[in-house]
């Protein structure tokens, strides 16, 4: 096991510099494209929150704009403390304006910072060569590239998990108060950023304690201090700030959907999704890597994997529908692959020079192919035209009555670019989810009457969604006049 104090050789330093430059470069590619390339709902949610925070602390801005930004922020739910959004707002302020490239740069830099800690950690867990491999996977996995440049708390949460693992690892090595406190605080920070981090951190923490033996740790004040530091701050926020919101989340996403785990198809879909995101072969290799890892890393990695599995079992719907729910598995898999890479490099070292050169060619292909894939995807998607479209639509939307809309991304495009808040008519996916939760979606007429009771207009911008809801289309076409129709939208008057 290498210590971090062992100096890095010049070729390794060079490789690291190249890795980080490439990692940053690919994340900054197509920087000015609006954040609609990857889970626009989630990114626009953060954008609206950040804008609200920014305008609230920008005293020289136009008063009506400021009020509108703050009130739009207030209309959307807060799932977690707006840490990344607040950092972004401060940078907006420092830069003198709102620019959605900024959170992309911030998250990319955070991710790269996490990469440095991951490298240091995997050096300790395996070796320098294993760490280089782990870092390469972490930086260049196409899914990781896309997710880590998106405006949402998940990249910061993932980096929080990485530094927590590092602190726990160091505590397990040294058993010092310094690392105990750091492990507790960093874990609390990660969970505060997003509560999903709790699963991995809890799994790892239990593994770290069990690794040294339950009985000696039972009386160890460091363990209790760590536990208290880890649990109290997040619990204070999630349980006491707005207990109703946490309870709703638990009821809606866990309790109502837990029945999914009894369906074998769920596991197939989960695995299939993971395979698409991270390569099934590498997941299996990572699991084998855990088995051949040294004892301490193995214990912590097993804890992390068990935490991830429990996470999947308690949030089953997201496991095959929301790719960013798997982002925190990237460093876990990278760390699990390090011992495998270690073995590989050990064997490759025994080869003749010409074969090692061939290996370098393969390694370059392994780096540049995913980079090329991501670049091609980003180049193929262009959303520059969207802000103007939604801004124009926002201006055309009447303000003399409430609007209900069947629209993209929970109405966030209209809200962010068009500065317009609308109530939402559920999409087909939402209706499916309601049925999955045991709800009834068959009573269309009463549902329509209830949802449109205090509304004056019905706006449709998701036209394909309307085609999938024939009852709604018939209701609108047969009973209400169209008062505006344009490229990609229809507006009905509900009170003609």
């Amino acid at each position, binding site marked *: 096991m290498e210590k971090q104090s062992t100096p890095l050789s010049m070729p390794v330093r060079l490789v690291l510099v190249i890795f980080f430059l490439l990692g940053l470069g690919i994340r900054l590619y197509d920087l000015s494209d609006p954040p609609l390339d990857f889970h626009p709902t989630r990114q626009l949610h953060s954008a609206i929150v950040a804008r609200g925070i920014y305008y609230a602390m920008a005293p020289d801005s136009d008063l009506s704009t400021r009020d509108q930004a703050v009130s739009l922020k207030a209309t959307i739910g807060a799932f977690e403390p707006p840490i990344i959004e607040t950092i972004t707002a401060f940078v907006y302020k420092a830069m003198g304006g709102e620019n959605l490239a900024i959170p992309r740069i911030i998250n990319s830099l955070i991710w790269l910072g996490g990469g440095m800690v991951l490298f240091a950690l995997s050096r300790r867990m395996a070796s320098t060569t294993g760490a280089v491999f782990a870092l390469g996977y972490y930086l260049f996995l196409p899914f990781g590239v896309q997710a880590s440049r998106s405006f949402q708390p998940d990249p910061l949460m993932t980096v929080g998990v990485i530094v927590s693992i590092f602190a726990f690892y160091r505590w397990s090595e040294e058993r010092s108060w310094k690392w105990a406190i750091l492990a507790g605080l960093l874990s609390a920070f990660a969970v505060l950023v997003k509560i999903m981090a709790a699963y991995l951190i809890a799994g790892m923490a239990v593994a770290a304690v069990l690794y040294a033996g339950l009985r000696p740790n039972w009386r160890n004040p460091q363990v209790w201090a760590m536990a208290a530091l880890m649990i109290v701050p997040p619990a204070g926020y999630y349980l006491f700030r707005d207990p109703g919101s946490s309870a709703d989340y638990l009821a809606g996403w866990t309790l109502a959907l837990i029945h999914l785990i009894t369906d074998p198809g769920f596991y197939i879909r989960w695995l299939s999704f993971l395979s698409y995101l991270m*390569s099934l072969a590498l997941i299996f290799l990572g699991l084998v890597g855990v*088995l051949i890892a040294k004892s301490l890393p193995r214990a912590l990695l097993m804890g992390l994997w068990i935490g991830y599995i429990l996470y999947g079992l308690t949030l089953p719907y997201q496991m095959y529908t929301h790719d960013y729910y798997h982002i925190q598995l990237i460093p876990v898999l990278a760390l699990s692959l390090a011992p495998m890479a270690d073995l590989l490099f050990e064997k*490759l070292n025994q*080869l003749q020079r010409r074969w090692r050169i061939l290996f370098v060619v393969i390694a370059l*292909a392994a780096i540049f192919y995913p980079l090329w894939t991501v670049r091609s995807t980003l180049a193929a998607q262009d959303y520059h035209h969207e802000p103007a479209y939604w801004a124009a639509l926002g201006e055309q939307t009447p303000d003399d009555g409430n609007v209900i809309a069947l629209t993209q991304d929970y109405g966030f495009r209209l809200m962010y670019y068009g500065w317009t808040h609308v109530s939402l008519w559920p999409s087909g996916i939402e209706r499916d989810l309601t049925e999955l939760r045991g709800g009834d979606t068959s009573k269309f007429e009463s549902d329509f009457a209830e949802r449109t009771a205090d509304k004056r207009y019905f706006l449709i911008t998701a036209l394909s969604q309307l085609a999938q809801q024939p009852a709604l289309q018939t209701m609108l076409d047969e009973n209400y006049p169209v008062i505006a129709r344009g490229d990609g939208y229809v507006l009905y008057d509900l009170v003609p």
Partner: protein
Amino acid sequence: MNDQTSLFFQPRWLLWLVVILAVTFGLGIRAYDLTDPPLDFHATRQLRSAIIARGMYYANLGDAPAWQRERAIQGMEAEAPIEPPILERLSAWGYSLVGGEHLWVPRLLSALFWISGAMAVFLLGREFGTFDGGVVALFYILFLPYSIYASRSFQPDPLMVASIAWAMWAAARWYRLRTIKSALLAGLLAGVSLYIKTVAVFFVGSGLVGLVLAGIGLRKALRDRQVWTLGVLTILPTTLFYINGLWISGVLRQQFQYRFFPDLLRDPAFYIRWQEMATNICGFGTLLAALIGLLLLRDSGKRGLLAGMWLGYVAYSMTFAYHTLTHDYYQLPLILIIAASLTVLASEILTRMALVEQSIWARLLVIVILFGGAAFKAWDVRVNLARDDYRGDAAFWQEVGEWIPPDSNVLAMSQAYGQALYFFGWVPNDPWLSQGDIDMRVLAGTPEEEVLQAQYDMIPKYDYFVTTQVGEFRADARLSEFLYANYAVVVENNSFIIFNLRK
């Protein structure tokens, strides 16, 4: 088996239990939906074999109606030979055995051949590393989804890949044993492989050359009687077949038409699309892991064998550049090469595991991963096979066939080059070229107008024009206007249109 050939799957019965269960499971998933007509995967290629096998079967079926027998034989003879019809002959015998023309017979035969090839890969594990590595490669070649679809199809490729696998195994074994008996076996298996489908020469030939050059050396090899035996046995059967086909019977003269498109090699897009085709099927990560396996192979001769096969694959893909991009089953040999290369990496990993972690739990976890992964992939395939049901298609083609009087000359714009109409509807026909085929001829150097004119010149020679691709037909304004203006419609609906070219 000594302990060095399997360190991980111990005790020995565990190794064999895992292999037997994997093979049974692999056969099981291939036998699923066995009776669905072979329209699920490259229908043209499968129906071609089905038509040949039918001709062979009906030729010996005394109690068949004369017209059926005649058309079956006529269909077989109309198919230009590309390779010896071994699978088709075996299928015809199978039909006789089960008492009817059941298309599940060739499906089952292909699956069995593929599984035998997978066993050869397992045995290769012992030659390249350990049986442990062979087990991992066995799972890869059996449960890669594409391999499941392709290996139950009625075409010679699964048999060819299996024969290459056995030839590889025999060559590696000969190199280890260096006995005349093992040289004879290797030569025979290599010869069979080339005889089944000549393109196997790219893999077997280059593999053997790599083995001999890297393991023995050219000068020494030229004086080695075993090398000569191996070489002669390898090329003899296929040489005789080609001498007969090209210069005596002449039946093979057409087979080089529209095969080579060297211009494609100058287009960078070719390499990108080739890479996409290969990685979509085999997985980019797996491809890299396999290449690393090649590097880790310590024995120079065996590494020469494997490297020769990789280079053979490159040469094969560049030789048949057009087919590399358009026919995914041209990647089937790559699955074998990757599986063989994976044996090396997997052997290293499992050997390390066996040394580091000796508990039964580690073994159990690996076995769970292997079978869990296999079940996951197999389930995916099962869902697709269950969803795609072609049983109704046969009735459709029969309905089309009923509109056409016997012994008519038919020109067809129809799926699978009219072979579905021929096979299920018993209507012999010549194909109206699709846009893709016209493009291919243009790529080969014939001007588009010349190809089209040749098509139109054909029309008066036929009695009926049938289209079952109504959308494509209507989109072709020139053709549809010409036919509607000059000929009478016999029947027209959303599924097919028939013109009487004599009215």
